[in-house]
């Protein structure tokens, strides 16, 4: 691990990272990005107001395509969250210490992506103000959720995942917040970080509890990574629609989640290290490792595509065969072939170690994968719904400006939160990095 270890000394790490949060250099690109994020978020807010006033009919959904952009956006965002948890929790449990320079922003990405994704299942409802009916709360009517529906379990899965992610992220932040409190020059910042640091004094007792809690939360988060996305997959495979009704969906969706998550980690990390000059922390080796994982996840997803097609023909079920034929050559055939280009072809470049260390190329491939994964969900949802059982009920979906508004707006919202994060909070985990700076820690891993 020595090769991967950042060369900075103990205090230099704290100084460098706190400087970013306390002095916020590079404010020009930050403000530019912030304006974009605010505009997009504003568009999202307008969209929500119009949606609440008029109904989900402002989108292009119809019968038969009753789910489209909103659910695609939902699955896409929640999947992006997966990689963050995986990097911080699973690699933590497996003692992959190189993750230390990635885990903070990756976890932040998780929290924000899950928060954004959670909006969609609520706003996509015909009557969103009744979303809480999914919760099993005691009531005089004695009505409970319908437990056979995957959507109920999905509701729990998102909620649990969001709560655990926020806790894990926040617990990890506490010592760093204390560092910022100590280094803050103004009274306001001292109070701000002081309150957030919850009185952390760096006592041995604190450290001991911090370590055990981190371990417990990591232990909770890792199974959640798998369960949440399996649950999302069951939202579809529970249905009897050709193209949805498939047992491979849970692992396939988990693989897809890692795939897009690693892609997003790269797409966020590469500009971040460029603007903030973090090349010493987020090294080419990190890019190489993330790209390798993205390749591995991508290959698993590609296997899923192949199996989906194979199983349709192997089953001999004429509806499944018709569904696959429609996916490959139907009205939305272009979506499938774009997905193949993005998710199958582009990642093959990552076999080359040289390319894996070229930030620009990896960044572009990451973007392509994100596009491809969004289209893949669109293909699975719209591409299956438009071509159901009865030919009389086949029908197209055409997005409206509000479909676009919610997609672009959700990106704006994510960007807004991420920008606030890099502005006010330590983008790298000082605690973890300081551990790496000590020789005995490095020798252990």
């Amino acid at each position, binding site marked *: 691990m020595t090769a991967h270890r950042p060369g900075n000394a103990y205090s230099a790490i704290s100084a460098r990272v706190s400087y970013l949060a306390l002095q916020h250099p590079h404010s020009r690109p930050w403000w530019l990005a912030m304006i974009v994020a605010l505009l997009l978020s504003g568009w999202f807010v307008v969209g929500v107001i119009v949606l609440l006033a*008029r*109904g*989900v*009919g*402002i989108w*292009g*959904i*119809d*019968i*038969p*395509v*009753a*789910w489209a952009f909103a659910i695609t956006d939902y699955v896409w965002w929640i999947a992006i969250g997966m990689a963050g948890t995986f990097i911080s929790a699973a690699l933590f449990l497996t003692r992959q210490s190189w993750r230390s320079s990635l885990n903070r922003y990756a976890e932040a990405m998780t929290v924000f992506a899950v928060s954004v994704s959670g909006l969609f299942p609520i706003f*996509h*409802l*015909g*009557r*969103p103000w*009744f*979303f809480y*009916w*999914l919760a099993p709360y005691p009531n005089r009517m004695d*009505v*409970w*959720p*319908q437990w*056979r*529906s*995957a*959507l*109920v379990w999905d*509701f729990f899965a998102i909620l649990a995942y969001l709560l655990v992610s926020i806790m894990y992220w926040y617990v990890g932040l506490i010592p760093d917040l204390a560092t910022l409190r100590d280094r803050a020059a103004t009274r306001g910042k001292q109070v701000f970080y002081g309150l957030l640091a919850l009185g952390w004094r760096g006592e041995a007792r604190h450290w001991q509890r911090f370590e055990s809690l981190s371990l417990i939360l990591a232990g909770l988060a890792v199974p959640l990574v798998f369960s949440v996305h399996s649950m999302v997959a069951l*939202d579809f495979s*529970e*249905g*009897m*629609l050709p193209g949805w009704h498939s047992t491979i969906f849970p692992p396939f969706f988990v693989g897809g989640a890692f795939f897009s998550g690693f892609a997003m980690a790269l797409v966020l990390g590469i500009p971040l290290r460029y603007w903030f000059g973090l090349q010493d922390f987020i090294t080419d080796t990190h890019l190489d490792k993330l790209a390798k994982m993205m390749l591995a996840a991508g290959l698993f997803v590609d296997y899923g595509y192949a199996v989906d097609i194979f199983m349709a023909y192997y089953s001999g079920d*004429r509806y499944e065969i*018709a569904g696959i034929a429609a996916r490959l050559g139907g009205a939305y055939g272009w979506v499938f072939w774009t997905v193949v280009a993005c998710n199958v072809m582009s990642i093959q470049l990552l076999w080359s170690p040289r390319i894996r260390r070229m930030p620009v190329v990896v960044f572009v491939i990451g973007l392509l994968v994100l596009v491809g994964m969004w289209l893949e969900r669109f293909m699975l949802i719209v591409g299956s*719904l438009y071509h*159901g*059982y*009865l*030919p*009389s*009920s*086949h*029908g*197209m979906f*055409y997005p409206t400006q509000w479909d676009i508004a919610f997609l672009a707006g959700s990106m704006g919202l994510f960007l807004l939160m991420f920008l606030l994060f890099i502005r006010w909070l330590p983008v790298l985990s000082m605690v973890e990095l300081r551990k790496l700076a000590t020789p005995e820690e490095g020798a252990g891993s």
Partner: protein
Amino acid sequence: MSSLTPSSVLGQARKRLQGSTGARFWRALEELADDPVFRRELGDAVPQLASVMSMDRRHFLQLLGASLAFGGLAACSGPPGGKLVPWISQPNGMTPGVPQFYATALAYGGDVLGVLVESRDGRPTKLEGNPQHPASFGATGPLPQAAVLELWDPDRSQQPLHRGHADSWDAFAQVAAKLRMDCGQDGSGLYVLSGRLQSPTSMAQRDALLHRFPGASWHEYEPVADDNAEQGAQLAFGKPMVSRYHIEHADVILSLEADFLGDMPGRVAHARAFAGRRDPSSPMSRLYVAEATPSLTGSMADHRWTLRSADIAVFARELATELGVNGSKAIGGSGVSAARVKAVAADLLAHRGSSLVMAGESQPPPVHALAHVLNEHLGNAGKTVDYLEGNPRSSGNLADLCMALRRDDVETLIVLESNIAYSAPADLPFAELLQDVPQLIHWGLYVDETAALADWHLPATHTLENWSDLRAQDGTTSVVQPLIAPLYQGRSVHELLALLMGDTTQDGLSIVQQHWQATLGDADAAAWQHSLGRGIALAAPAAAMPPPTQREFLAGWQPARQPDDALELTFRPDPTVWDGRYANNGWLQELPKPLTQLTWSNAALISPALAATYALHNGDVITLEHGGSKLEAPVWIMPGQAGRSITVHLGYGRRAAGRVGSNLGFDAYPLRSSAQAWAAQGVTITKTGRSVELAGTQQHFQMEAPAPVREVTLAQLMAEPDIVGRDNVTPPSFYPQQPPGEYAWGMTVDLNACIGCKGCSIACQAENNIPVVGADQVRREREMHWIRVDRYYAGSPENPSIHHQPVPCMHCEHAPCELVCPVGATVHDQEGLNVQVYNRCIGTRFCSNNCPYKVRRFNFLQFSDLTTESLKAQRNPDVSVRNRGVMEKCTYCIQRIEEAHITADKAQRRIADGDIVTACQAACPTQAIRFGDISDPHSEVAKAKASPRRYDLLAELNTRPRTSYLAAVRNPNPALGDDA
């Protein structure tokens, strides 16, 4: 505050309220008085503040007193004069909340139907057929079902208009008096134009008017009528006999463009009779159809041959020659192969006395005459067809009136319920001629294109608001009785004619009653009551013996052979808006037109071959040119359309139809001449390069295996009785059967009977308060019909076989929708109904995604109109009105099931078979839909389910649907073999 003093506000308010009867809803006196200042204030952000600031104490108290005194002003305009009897004890047979039914009759789309109207506490909400009426037998169809919406249409004309300004009937009475003075004894200069008169009282009033004013002239014009049939009878018999078909006796039917199931008068009874002869377990009839554009009749044919409309006459001549009719010489070249002509001739000859040849209105008179000759030749006259003396027609037609207008003979023209400014043929430019009429008086239901030109527009009563009488196609005459006092200031045509004659004492009831007393002789009150109760005043007369046919016309008639590449343009009444009169009816606009599945618009129907020649796609706009007139129309590619024939439907392009119906589609009348009313030869088309998106509800028409519609031939079914049912295997299941309730509701749809008229869709819409969503939402595939009628093609696009399939909710026993709803808003009840709990639905739409039949409908936006007062009165109080964000679907008319439960519980008995009739079932002209308890082996539906033709849609999915289908059976002529 308002510029008006309180007393002037009150004066104006009262004046305006006098202009309307019944409760008018208003928010403030100023609004009612239509004060411009108040209107401006209403627009202000805080009008309350403005009014308070400018108001002193005295002013406030004045207003307060005025509000108290006139708060109930609307109530004061209550029931019209006459004797009022207070409700001391509940009237016999009436329970608040329990609907009552009244028999009446309804004229619609060139036909007359006896109906029962459901009245809910005085509000007519739904029509059913009158089971005793021979034109209905209890069934209706789409156009009659929509009559209720027409009654409650807020766009109806509400008060007399004098040059476009509100006026009163009293003022018009003075005009009428002056008119009588000016007309003097003779009445020359007085012209009346009416639609085709179907009311005996109207005919008597017409005769009285012409007797009183011998110089006056009465003209009848109907854009879609039976003029050709009448002239054809004149040719064949020397007098205008009306044919009455007995399809139930016909073993072999040849239709020469006769759409006897679709738009011919008597269609509902025809459909019942036809379906009765299509049961494969009894001798099944055989139907040959030759037509230019697919019709409902063509879709049911065993052999359907596509010919240009002009070539059908040639085919008829060939057939007559083959049949050995004296004087007929075939000219050849109809496009029907000699083998087919021979085969159909042999089939007709083999069924002498039980065959039937019918000619459609779109065919010229000689073809009708030839059909009469053939029926006589085949010995069918008096058996499968008999004849009635026609109604006495008015002396004049539209061309005569046009001449009079051009000669400036017309002093006063009274237009009775005819939108002549819109629907006149292109060669009779009425829209221009009417502008020069010294006095034009228009009486009609809407302020339409003609009303806009009129000096006086008088509001008509709706047929559910007035007394009248109607004579059906078969001669059965019914008294029309009102279900509700006129909503607005309308008067019936009888009252108007009486007013014109100077008789202001009689109301509609006494005019009609008087006529019937004179007709029935010493009819007492009991007979009158009896005729009202049954809905039939005079039974159908016995057939008149027609004179032998005259065949001289055959020698002189040489159907013109059109060049093979000549393009023909045919006109048809629109299947839903007819000649344009129903344009403002949202239910009819949104009903997918049978065969095209288009809504809210018409299109130029072209054959796939023509589309290929001109490289046209659906929605491409073309220019049609004929006789110097041009027309731009979007095309719709119609499988089964004759190769060189283009069809356009009348009734669109209305400019003043109302808020719903104006400016939709294109107006086809400018290409239609009186000489070539149904088919124009030698049209040219050019592409414009533009394209529009038409609102169709079904984009995919080709069936994929396994076909949703199963069809076998009679021979196949005889050879292998299990040919349909053997694939219908329900897979095993781990789950227990649904908990058995006392009843197990189920439905069957007989595809062999269904003619695809879509009466079920509108009946369901009326019964279940289904909203209208508009063209834009239909384009977005958000139509709301709970029962849709899918239409599929099989075979070559040039001449495919056409199938209809009504699809309601299947009420699956293993319902995929129930499994996926996270809040349990769709659940199963113990009687097998898959019920939707609107209150609980949060709108995830997963149920719709998981429904393999896609029968669920979602309120994507606020589709139900919650603000228009008159539409509220139309709704069925037994069915919830759904708001946005909620899923809905067919309930098997659960409100009717519950009603039967209550009735049976009160009588402490089981619900008997037939106690529950769903709305779709009741409306169906062919009784294709059966509903009942499938656990009772003696129920109709259980018997239907036991049929060897029964199959379940997508049975392999193990949804175990409670709705089953019976396969269609065709009975092709074995002699034709592959040359079908």
